[in-house]
């Protein structure tokens, strides 16, 4: 039996069940919504799920109760597929940016902006130095902690992403026209610092005081402006410095070559959890040419000796269900490149919120199975 054991986990978000979405939107539930609650309750063996179905049918549940049920369903799904580390699929959050902007003081909603095609995102403006009245996610964490015996990893939106995805009506407002690049950079740096220290850090400290053992900082905007990666690092360090917990960072759909050497300054960051599968071939194989999505980025990990990589092995933008053998080969290739299985853990590319639960279940189950195949192969 091999001594190699990879930790499997999700990254963050799952889609919200239709009964949860409609309840919060004030739209009437249809039979299909109730059937889904019933079917997944049975499939995941959610204790007492009949009460949810009855409550939804009779309209007797309030929104926080429905939120709790959605979180329990998500936790059970992640447990059922066999993950070692779980959370609640961010069922109680609107989405990663708005969750923070709507809670913190200093942000005001400004409206909708298109991301691509017919996809949009809500955007807020910072109008004063941001702050929070207290830690935001402790209650959410305690709920998860109370409903699973698996290891819990808490995903939090990072300070740089909050800065990059917000309009600035406070820090750089004066003298924008014709201002110097230094002026603009300084404004962004002060914004990142304030979010890290006055918004993210209180949450991190509160979570750890409540028993959280693993904090994941999500920075999808990390390389949007390649010369500002040092600000990403500063934001992480300011938010987590000295905190007694595992700390990691998730980044996706980015130019990873821009991360180095700045990420070497991340303090006590266990690993970078990155998206790879999106860029990869779906053919089996463990040679360089078989794994185009992994070769270049893993070479950076090898060259710079960054301690850990969270290996994205599932493409979250596709319904293609990665066969276990493909997951296995992606892991084995990473082991071959890095030469040390202890530096590798396994996850999807990103949160799976855009996929149906049927697809998510199959993808994650294959991810776990493929991970076991890799362990066997290494043995």
């Amino acid at each position, binding site marked *: 039996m091999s001594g190699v054991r990879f930790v499997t986990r999700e990254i963050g978000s799952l889609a919200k069940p239709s009964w949860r979405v409609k309840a919060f939107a004030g739209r009437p539930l249809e039979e299909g919504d109730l059937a889904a609650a019933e079917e997944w309750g049975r499939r995941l063996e959610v204790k007492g799920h009949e009460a949810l179905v009855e409550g939804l049918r009779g309209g007797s549940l309030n929104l926080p109760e429905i939120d709790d049920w959605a979180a329990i369903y998500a936790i059970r799904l992640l447990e059922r597929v066999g993950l070692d580390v779980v959370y609640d699929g961010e069922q109680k959050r609107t989405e990663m940016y708005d969750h923070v902007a709507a809670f913190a003081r200093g942000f005001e909603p400004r409206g909708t902006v298109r991301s*691509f095609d017919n996809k949009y995102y809500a955007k807020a403006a910072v109008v004063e130095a941001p702050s929070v009245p207290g830690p935001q996610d402790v209650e959410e964490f305690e709920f998860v902690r109370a409903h699973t015996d698996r290891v819990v990893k808490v995903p939090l939106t990072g300070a740089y992403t909050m800065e990059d995805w917000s309009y600035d009506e406070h820090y750089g407002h004066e003298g924008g026209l014709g201002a110097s690049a230094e002026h603009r950079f300084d404004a962004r740096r002060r914004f990142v610092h304030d979010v890290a220290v006055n918004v993210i850090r209180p949450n991190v400290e509160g979570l750890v005081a409540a028993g959280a053992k693993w904090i994941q900082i999500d920075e999808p905007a990390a390389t949007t402006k390649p010369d500002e990666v040092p600000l990403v690092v500063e934001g992480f360090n300011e938010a987590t410095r000295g905190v007694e917990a595992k700390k990691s960072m998730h980044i996706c759909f980015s130019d990873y070559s821009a991360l180095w050497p700045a990420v070497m300054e991340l303090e006590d960051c266990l690993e970078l959890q990155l998206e790879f599968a999106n860029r990869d071939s779906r053919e089996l194989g463990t040679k360089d040419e078989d794994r185009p999505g992994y070769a270049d980025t893993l070479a950076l990990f090898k060259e710079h000796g960054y301690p850990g990589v969270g290996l994205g092995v599932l493409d979250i933008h596709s319904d293609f269900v990665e066969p276990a053998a493909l997951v296995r080969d992606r892991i084995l290739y990473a082991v071959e490149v890095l030469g040390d299985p202890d530096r590798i853990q396994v996850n999807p590319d990103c949160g799976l919120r855009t996929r149906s639960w049927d697809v998510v279940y199959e993808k994650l189950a294959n991810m776990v199975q493929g991970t076991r195949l890799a362990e066997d192969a290494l043995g």
Partner: protein
Amino acid sequence: MRAFAPGIYPRSEELVQATRDCERGRTSPKAVAEQVERDFQELVSVQRAADLSFLSDGMLGWQDLFRPLAEAVEGLDARPLTRFLDTNTFYRGVLVDGEPRLRNPLPPPDLPDREWIGTLPSPLAFARAARDEVSAEKLAANVLGPQVQAWMDAGAALIVLSEPFAAREGSADELLRGLAELPAAPLALQLPFGDAGSILPALAEASVSVIGIDFYATSLDALPSGFPKEILAGVVDARSSALEDPVEIARFVEELLAREPGAVYLTPNGDLQFVPEPIARQKLACLGHAAIELAEVA
């Protein structure tokens, strides 16, 4: 002082909702098209109210800077999502699978003759979107040239070529070669969201009469005195929700005029699609106010 707003304009909340509903099967493509028409008519009204010199159709049917054109071209197709510069907005890159040739030019907007401007990608931008699998010269000659000619024949007053890459790359050689393949016409080259300082001297030789500069990213000192081109001055920040002060803009433009460029027109520094529509319409009004302010000073 003339002012206008090229590029992609944001969708109204009603249009956003219509497209979302359509994707979820709650409304029809016809209903979306009707909302697009309402957005278009409203945009025309807003531009007229702001007293802008030329009208734009807001490219409301364009998913991004390249797609409708790429779809109208034999030998090109849409690629996976690609981040647009340093924004949280994405475009479909352009896949080259043959000799590119414009099948049928995109139709002109329903706007009065010589009162409207059109926006197209520059030859270099188009080539970069295609990962340089086809040259800027070829795209200019086979695709953009015929499209420019078609719009000029249909009554365009000016065609703005959006060029987001050259300023960041710091080189204009390839861009100049591509521009040289375009027909003689009133053309402006706009450099959104980038510090144009390093390529401005080279652009003095460009075969276009107007150069668009983002003055939120480019220092005024970078503009050579007596620059031989007319300037599209990007004085409204299309990536900021903060509203500009027309008086401050006017003051800045006076400094710009002191450098004696060919002429100056006021524009946003890029597509207004990066702010929500209610903010964009206030920025259009601000642009108009700044132009009036300058006219009064003159």
